[in-house]
């Protein structure tokens, strides 16, 4: 085979491929998965989509807490007569092979009866018999084939989540009534004097009346509710004229058919509501697999291991952790509380908290903060604070997290609604007064006709269709927004604040500088060889940067966890590691992560790891500063100050050593005079993201984790941010133009209404025509604009 990538996952096999069954694999994990699949008649997996597999992660005792029946009962959806049903979130689901495989789980274990994948939400629903099987076994089985479920505190006790399908019902009701009413109203459009028509029109009319009742009282009820809510808070939103229009349409039509004055406007009424609900449905599109409401709960584990008085292990739910408890934290586990280290060497990765990717080394007796992930070995810690009182989780007590940004924001449509309502009401009153003088019998006709024809259906549709389309286009280019309201807010932004680490810098590449005595070639070779043997992230990134090619054979090699490496070749020793390990006195507090090198106990120098800025950041700032004020808020020290000043405009605000609360307060102060966009990534930005007018989380893998925000931006698309803002502004312009367009239709309609000549057939033509042309116009414009992104 010419192909040298893994048959299972498609990764390159590098130096040591595993050969099996005439195929090659990048690791034993992938080979095992292949074996399982082929042994169980599931090799069709590879035919559906080549190299679609995922490499399984080693998991050891991570899921032992699933032995605790109390925890399991909180997680499963259904548990009766030996059968359990559970909905698991599996971020790894990505292609049709995944769907096929996961829906054939019953071939892997007989106890599993049904498994069904929901692809857009990346979840799987499994029904299994408890006999000889358990939730833990299921989770381990899924993990072993590379589909590790994502279990977090958030899943705990979220049971009974109900899906809201009312909009679909409303759409069904309105569409059903609309179609039937159209059919029934057709014969009377042409006003022919025909015997049979006269005979049956009463039946037709009352049937239309019957069809329109559920439309008015069920499908359109949201508009009435919203209008009443608006009026109570003394706001004339766009729903007021809509509700008024629907109500007047219904009453006038009923009066018309009761006194045999005409056929009524039931067709326009049902059509109007149908289009409005359709607009709402279109706007409702969300990204089901992303969560915009995440807090620490979706990141924290469900349970941890507590040590009893005689060191016996016990799995407990994390809300039950009390101060003074002793916990066991294993490799790759997350610290759920603030605690003090009592045994082991801690190497903590705080990247979810601070965005800083380099692990921090902690010694016995030092404090560890909640949210960090242990990277090597087992720790024993003593709890200092309970979960809700820890440094990180305390932030969620702040009131910004309970505030709903969308409800405090007056949309463009609502802004227009106010003026529109006043204008329509005054026209209706004036024309009624006019007719009161000249032809009193026409007054009611004219008054209601004005309210009917002026019903701002097209205006109400302009925003949902423009913004809904824009939302989809943004989604295609990797900016995933929570709802359409965010686009309107984004268009008003005049100030943008960025977090540094993880947002404009990347964790995947490092810039490394060497400071100190020049190393000889022999030393360089030795250093590279020494690093090669270590699996520490710093060693690996340093190894990939060093240029030396001659690999020497080490006589001795020793790795001290959390300290450094020691190697011996030909009577020479080399030490690589932290300052204290190598023997260097730390003069000042180190600003950047450094690795020290010494040969024969003599310190040579250090490698300094500098932040690597994402590609296109310079250009992005240059483009943004033309219309927006910029700023940087960093939780780090000011080691990068000079470099940041170079790429930012002179008036930019740069602040370092910012705690999560500081960031929140900074944004709050800035909001006194500005509309602020916050771009961040870690949990420490969560407060600032919630406080800002628009909070966007930057993420390298959108499926994994991002704090609560208004939008998630794929890190690759960060340089497109100025374009996204520009397109939001243009969308608002499109909405304004379509307002003008629909006003033209309204003027034509008003002419008929004011002169007392409004026939049902005119309304039936004019109203759908205006709605459809506005929808067509906005869709076309937005798609033309969207081409810019390519």
């Amino acid at each position, binding site marked *: 085979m010419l192909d040298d990538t893994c048959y299972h996952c498609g990764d390159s096999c590098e130096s040591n491929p595993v050969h099996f069954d005439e195929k090659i694999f990048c690791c034993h994990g992938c080979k095992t998965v292949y074996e399982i699949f082929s042994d169980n008649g599931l090799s069709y997996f590879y035919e559906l989509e080549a190299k679609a597999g995922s490499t399984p992660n080693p998991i050891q005792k991570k899921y032992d807490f699933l032995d605790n029946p109390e925890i399991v009962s909180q997680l499963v959806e259904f548990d009766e007569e030996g059968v359990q049903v559970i909905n698991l979130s599996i971020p790894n689901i990505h292609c049709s092979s995944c769907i096929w495989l996961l829906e054939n789980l019953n071939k892997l274990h*007989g106890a599993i009866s049904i498994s069904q994948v929901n692809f857009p*939400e990346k979840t799987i629903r499994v029904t299994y018999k408890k006999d000889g099987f358990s939730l833990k076994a299921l989770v*381990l*089985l899924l993990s*072993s084939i590379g589909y590790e479920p994502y279990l977090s505190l958030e899943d705990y006790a979220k049971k009974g989540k109900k899906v809201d399908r009312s909009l679909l019902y409303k759409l*069904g009701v309105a569409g059903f009534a609309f179609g039937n009413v159209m059919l029934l109203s057709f014969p009377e459009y042409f006003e022919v004097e025909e015997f049979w028509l006269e005979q049956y029109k009463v*039946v037709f009319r009352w049937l239309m009346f019957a069809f329109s009742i559920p439309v008015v009282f069920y499908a359109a009820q949201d508009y009435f509710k919203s209008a009443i809510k608006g009026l109570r808070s003394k706001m004339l939103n766009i729903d007021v004229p809509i509700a008024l229009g629907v109500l007047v349409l219904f009453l006038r039509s009923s009066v018309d058919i009761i006194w045999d004055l005409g056929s009524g406007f039931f067709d326009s009424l049902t059509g109007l509501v149908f289009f409005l609900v359709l607009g709402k449905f279109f706007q409702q599109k969300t990204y089901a697999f992303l969560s915009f409401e995440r807090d620490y709960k979706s990141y924290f584990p469900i349970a941890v291991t507590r040590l009893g008085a005689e060191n016996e292990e016990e799995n407990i739910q994390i809300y039950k952790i009390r101060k003074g408890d002793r916990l066991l934290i294993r490799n790759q586990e997350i610290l759920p509380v603030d605690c003090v280290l009592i045994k082991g060497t801690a190497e903590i990765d705080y990247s979810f908290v601070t965005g800083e990717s380099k692990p921090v080394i902690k010694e016995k007796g030092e404090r560890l903060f909640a949210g960090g992930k242990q990277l090597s070995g087992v720790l024993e810690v003593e709890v200092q604070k309970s979960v809700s009182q820890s440094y990180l989780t305390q932030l969620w007590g702040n009131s910004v997290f309970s505030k709903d940004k969308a409800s405090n924001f007056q949309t463009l449509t609502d802004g227009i609604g106010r003026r529109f309502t006043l204008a329509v009401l005054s026209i209706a009153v004036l024309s009624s007064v006019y007719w009161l003088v000249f032809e009193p019998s026409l007054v009611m006709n004219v008054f209601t006709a004005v309210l009917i024809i002026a019903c701002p259906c097209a205006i109400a549709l302009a925003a949902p269709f423009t913004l809904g389309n824009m939302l989809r286009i943004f989604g295609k280019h990797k900016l995933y927004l929570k709802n359409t309201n965010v686009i309107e807010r984004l268009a008003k932004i005049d100030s943008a604040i960025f977090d540094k680490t993880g947002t404009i810098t990347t964790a995947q590449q490092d810039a490394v500088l060497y400071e100190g005595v020049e190393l000889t070639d022999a030393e360089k070779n030795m250093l590279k060889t020494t690093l090669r043997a270590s699996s520490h992230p710093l060693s690996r990134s340093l190894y990939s940067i060093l240029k030396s090619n001659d690999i020497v054979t080490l006589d001795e090699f020793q790795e001290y966890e959390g300290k450094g490496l020691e190697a011996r070749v030909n009577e020479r020793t080399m030490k690589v590691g932290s300052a204290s390990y190598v023997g260097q006195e730390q003069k000042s507090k180190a600003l950047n992560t450094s690795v020290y090198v010494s040969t024969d106990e003599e310190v040579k120098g250090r490698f300094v790891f500098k932040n690597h800025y994402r590609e296109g950041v310079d250009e992005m700032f240059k483009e943004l500063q033309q219309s927006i004020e910029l700023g940087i808020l960093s939780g780090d020290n000011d080691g990068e100050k000079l470099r940041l000043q170079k790429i930012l405009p002179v008036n930019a605000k740069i602040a370092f050593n910012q705690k999560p609360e500081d960031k929140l307060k900074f944004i709050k102060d800035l909001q006194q005079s500005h509309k602020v966009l916050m771009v961040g990534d870690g949990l420490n930005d969560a407060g600032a993201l919630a406080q800002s007018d628009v909070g966007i989380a930057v993420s390298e893998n959108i499926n994994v984790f991002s704090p609560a925000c208004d939008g998630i931006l794929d890190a690759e698309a960060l340089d497109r941010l100025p374009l996204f803002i520009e397109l939001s502004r243009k969308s608002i312009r499109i909405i304004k133009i379509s307002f003008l367009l629909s006003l033209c239709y309204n003027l034509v309609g008003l002419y008929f209404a004011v002169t007392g000549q409004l026939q049902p057939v005119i309304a039936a033509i004019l109203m759908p025509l205006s709605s459809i042309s506005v929808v067509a116009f906005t869709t076309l414009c937005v798609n033309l604009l969207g081409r810019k992104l390519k």
Partner: protein
Amino acid sequence: MSVIYVLLAISICVALVFFIAFIRSVKAGQYDDSYTPSVRMLFEDELVSTEGTVTTKKSEKINQIQDTNQ
């Protein structure tokens, strides 16, 4: 012409049947996931190996998985 009453009744009944079918399908969750079924229907119900060998090997394999994980 009174046949029109019958026709009307029939047409509305047919429409109602479809309407009820729609409501029921929404209630059953058919519209919750509009993507996966479109992929699912393309799968073929094939079985590569024979039943007998599958079951024995299966249990061994599962045991092995659990051993490695614990």
